């Protein structure tokens, strides 16, 4: 082999090595795309999600309240209908959400009260917005990432900052499992106080999408020591009978709530 040919081979080999090294260096993660992917797993683009939810609120004083409700969700136009089935005293009460507007219906006096999606649901730790569609990409940007093991899940831990002050929790930390499903999130105030912790250990596959089979919401501001251990007020949301069907448009209307309330 001539020296020129040898030099050419060495140069070519060096070039290959450099190219390999460059490709091995990771491109910055596309966080908006990641958040979009997470949302897309949870948002029903077509059809209506129907499910029965059981909301169990455990108070620190020892009492427990249970509400059973039918939930109907049409994500692509951001509409939501919740009709309470139990307890009997609240049967027929409902929530209707259309975009940013949320009404609470009381069949006792057949009245609609304008409320907020960010208000608490039936005096529990859950908020009305917890039943609505996921909107991580719309509301947040990613400010940091780390890795952690959460139970059996290897998770990416994303730190999120709200895009505007219209979002209740200005800072979040979410644990995303390898299947791009949120398994846990911590919600923080502006000043960094942990307000609540939400765990979603299991999911139901409904059609091509997912809904948390169980959601546990812990109010980190409401706690007390019991036997040397800190106990928090928490709410559990269990979903059953989930399905995706096309419902009539009239389902998401005040008239429908009034009809059911009768």
């Amino acid at each position, binding site marked *: 082999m001539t020296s020129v040919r040898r030099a050419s081979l060495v140069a070519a080999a060096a070039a290959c090595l450099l190219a390999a090294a460059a490709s091995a260096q990771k491109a910055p993660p596309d966080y908006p795309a990641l958040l979009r992917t997470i949302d897309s797993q949870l948002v029903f683009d077509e059809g209506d999600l129907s499910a029965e939810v059981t909301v169990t609120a455990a108070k620190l004083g020892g009492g427990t309240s249970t509400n059973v409700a039918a939930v109907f969700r049409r994500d692509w136009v951001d509409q939501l209908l919740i009709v309470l089935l139990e307890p009997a005293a609240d049967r027929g009460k409902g929530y209707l959400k259309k975009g940013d507007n949320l009404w609470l219906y009381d069949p006792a006096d057949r009245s609609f009260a304008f409320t*907020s*999606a*960010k208000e608490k649901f039936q005096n529990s730790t859950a908020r009305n917005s917890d039943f609505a569609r996921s909107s991580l990409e719309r509301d947040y940007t990613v400010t940091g990432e780390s890795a952690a093991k959460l139970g059996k899940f290897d998770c990416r831990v994303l730190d999120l900052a709200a895009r505007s002050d*219209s979002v*209740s*929790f200005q800072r979040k930390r979410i644990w995303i499992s390898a299947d791009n499903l949120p398994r846990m999130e911590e919600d923080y105030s502006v*000043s960094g*106080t942990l307000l609540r912790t939400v765990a979603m250990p299991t999911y139901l596959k409904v059609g091509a999408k997912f809904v948390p089979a169980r959601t546990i919401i812990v109010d980190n501001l409401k706690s*007390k020591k019991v036997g040397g251990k800190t106990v928090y007020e928490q709410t559990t949301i269990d979903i059953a009978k989930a399905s995706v069907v096309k419902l009539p448009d009239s389902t998401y209307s005040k008239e429908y709530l009034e009809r059911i309330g009768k």
Partner: protein
Amino acid sequence: MNFKVPLRNVLLQRRRYYFLGAAIAFGFMVVTLFGGATAGLVESMKEKASRYFSGHVDVRSYRAAGLMATDMAPVEALLRASGLGLRSVARRTIVYEGTSNVYFGGGAVPQRRVVGVDFSAEGERFAAMPYAAGNASGMAAGGGILISQDCASALGATIGDDVTLLHQMAGGGAIDTATLRVRGIFKESSIFGYVAYASIGDVNALLGIEDAHATDLAVYLGDASGADAAAEGVRKALGARYRTFGPIASREDLDAQIAAGIGFDQIFAVLSVDAQMSQFSQLLGAIGIVTWAALGVFAAIVAVGISNSYRMIVNERMRELGTMRAMGMTKGGLRGMFVFEAFVVASAGAALGLAAGVGALAILGAFDLSWIPGSGLFLDDGRLRYAFDGPGALRAYAAMAAVAIFAAAGPAFRASRVPPVRALRGE
């Protein structure tokens, strides 16, 4: 006229005048009691209201979006230089909108409002607030919170405990929190109860407002009774440099002016404590009207009683009157003597009634009346604060004296017309 004769007659005839004097004394006691109690209720309510509503005169800053925190330093300087005789001016940041809760021990208590106070300027106002525990000293340094007794009781919180104050912006917006130490637990109920006071720096930080900014200026006067006039003076002084709303008679009036349109530029609202409390002032006014109507009826009864009593007195003293007429006393002199006797009896009765009324107020003020529903609005630490209404007492005295004189004048006139001979015969 010889005043010694009627004065001597009153002393000599005191047994006849006992009932009359007692009736007048009782009436004056009732007037003093009601007047003093009402004046005390108003004074107590205004003091609480001035603490709660931001001074005797509240200056608020608005812009198109609504209430707006702004740099109040130039406004403060303008008011201090205005020559209006304002006792003090202090910045406040008041959380009017959104939801605020105090968290502790696993519980949460919603607050009707959270008030950021410049304790270096308003410290003495809050030192005078009745406390179940702790006090306001140390609040100027920040990091502390004053909560009501009801709130502390619901949370199980006490002095030195660190509580979490949470605020969520109106419309379900951003949530922020602050950890503050309980420095004072004040005894306040009714609408003045579900409020928390913290330093203005802490509240500004909670709301994301610049440190030097404020939503309100709390203006205090030497005499709260001139709040309406002072508010108009402040409004005119501000109007020389800033946009202001028109005169505001009540909070409903302010709402109506806001609804009519604020415009984009900054505009100030000036409310007196009377305007803030207009609904309660109306209630007190109604109570006052009913009270004075009842007193009017009572005065009429007293007048009839006095008139009848004097008729009896005149009849019983007919011979005496005849003797005086026979000795040269004129008809006018006789009438004047009776009227002056009535005036002396009324004055003595009023003096006794005043003393009895003040005594009754002191006794009433010693009892804890907080068990009366809704009384927290008007009471001072559960007790009635009474005030001596000097002008009111003078008016009542003048009225009572006039009633007595008027009631005595009729019989005196008729007695003066009886011929001396008939009078001597006792007819």
